[in-house]
């Protein structure tokens, strides 16, 4: 139960149920679909990027609390960041959900640290990273659909 509480912290349940920045972004200049075929989670991510700065992110989709909360927190965290900053945050995030949260990474991750409990649940890493892989693909202008399998 303690691991579960760690995984499903209030902020995650809140963001999962009431995701921020949810909906189509009309003036997006990048967008991308992501899909987790194993569990059916899907997401469309919209990004407004100007001069290598992420001005705004919105998303639509459906999925579990972890995938929706992760997308919601991504949209909040990466707003106003440069591409380089986003890459650093993604690297720290990926390390956190696979290996666990380190003190060194806490400053970089901020609010995202609430997803640290995912590292105890290997089956849920794909849920937590779907939005992030989709974001990366959007920025890379990758034409292939994002698929976590």
């Amino acid at each position, binding site marked *: 139960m303690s691991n579960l509480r760690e995984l*499903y912290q209030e902020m995650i349940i809140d963001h*999962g149920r009431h995701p921020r920045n949810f909906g189509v972004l009309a003036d997006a200049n990048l967008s991308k679909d992501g899909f987790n075929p194993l569990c059916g989670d899907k997401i469309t991510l919209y990004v407004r990027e100007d001069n290598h700065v992420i001005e705004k992110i919105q998303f639509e989709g459906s999925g579990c609390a972890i995938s929706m909360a992760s997308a919601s927190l991504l949209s909040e965290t990466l707003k106003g960041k440069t591409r380089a900053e986003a890459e650093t945050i993604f690297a720290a995030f990926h390390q956190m959900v696979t290996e666990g949260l380190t003190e060194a990474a806490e400053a970089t991750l901020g609010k995202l640290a609430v997803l640290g409990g995912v590292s105890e649940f290997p089956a849920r890493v794909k849920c937590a990273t779907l939005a992030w892989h989709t974001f990366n693909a959007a920025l890379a202008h990758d034409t292939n659909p994002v698929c976590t399998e």
Partner: protein
Amino acid sequence: MISSHKSNLSLDTIRAEFPLLQQLSHGKPLVYLDSSVTSQKPRCVIEATHQYYSEQNANIHRGVYELSARATDLFEQTRVTMRAFINAQHAHEIIFTSGATASINLVAHSYGRANFKAGDEVIVSTMEHHSNIVPWQMLRDQCGIVLRVIPITDAGEIDLDAYKNLFNEKTKFVAITHASNALGTINPIKEMARIAHQHGAKILVDGAQAFPHLPVDVQDLDCDFYVLSAHKAYGPTGVGVLYGKSELLNAMPPYQGGGDMIESVSFEKTTYNKLPAKFEAGTPNIAGVIVFNEALKFLQALGMNHIAAHEQTLLSYATQQLANIPGLRIIGTAKEKVGVISFVLDDVHPHDIGTVLDSEGIAVRAGHHCAMPVMTRFNVPATVRASFGVYSTQADVDALIAGLLTVKRLFA
């Protein structure tokens, strides 16, 4: 908590035959409610596997030596048991494959390519597993056949009137599940086969979810093909069966070429072996087929009628208990069901429910169950599914209910 069952199964005795069920999961007794995805294996199957590789391993239909002859005999004994089990007319109507999926692909490619032409129609249903949709779509893309889909009702039952209306002079084939893996619905196969035959169409029945849970008589059903997987019936993975009426199988071209399926080979001409070898190219899963016989004998000893009664008792108990949980909605409320219950709970996503239940030692399936059209039909992204086997108990159901109350507390 556990009331006495009407059937003559001694649950404790049965459970004692499944070593895996004795273990803990996350420090709690394992509650295995995922038998639809694969069943656990009784000791007789596990020990026979060990015995095969320790004492009996040899290739079949090949050696002149005693060891090979013995392995061949054991392999063929499973075919004989299987024939009786589903009441096929002949043992050579039993073809061993790698699973129900392979069996359907065999029929789609062998029977389909030989008999269907562009514009011919194949009927499937909304509740099919992907394995009874995709092979027909692949054939559609190759041969230009048309797929027609039987709608299902809000209860998750076949709309029989709509089914009848799908037939026309181009209808060649019906591919339908005996029991739905996502909804539990048992389909009226005998009636559906009669209707198909009235229109001159053949019918394939996917028995993967039915065969381990109720008596199956392929002659009484009058189906042309019946497919199943051993691993859902307490046997090993990698073994399946295709039953086909012998006149159909005889007329069908081979699916795969290779050893064992030939009579003679020269570079000018090859003649094919008779049934069942014609469809069993290459060295099969010999160990798997041989130990599957143990699983079949295990089921025979319990009696399929008793198994069905036991699982029906659990199904109605679980249905009642689940209905008491506020916010819980059962998906699939057909009158005739196998021991499968799909449900959603409030707005909590099934994967989150699955994770919470797992932490309580409860194994359920959460997802689309390889039946995405069913999810679309009921407008849910996924469901949680609990499914029963011979070893399932009311205590398992009680643990599930307690786990779901934990979910509700956590996501309140």
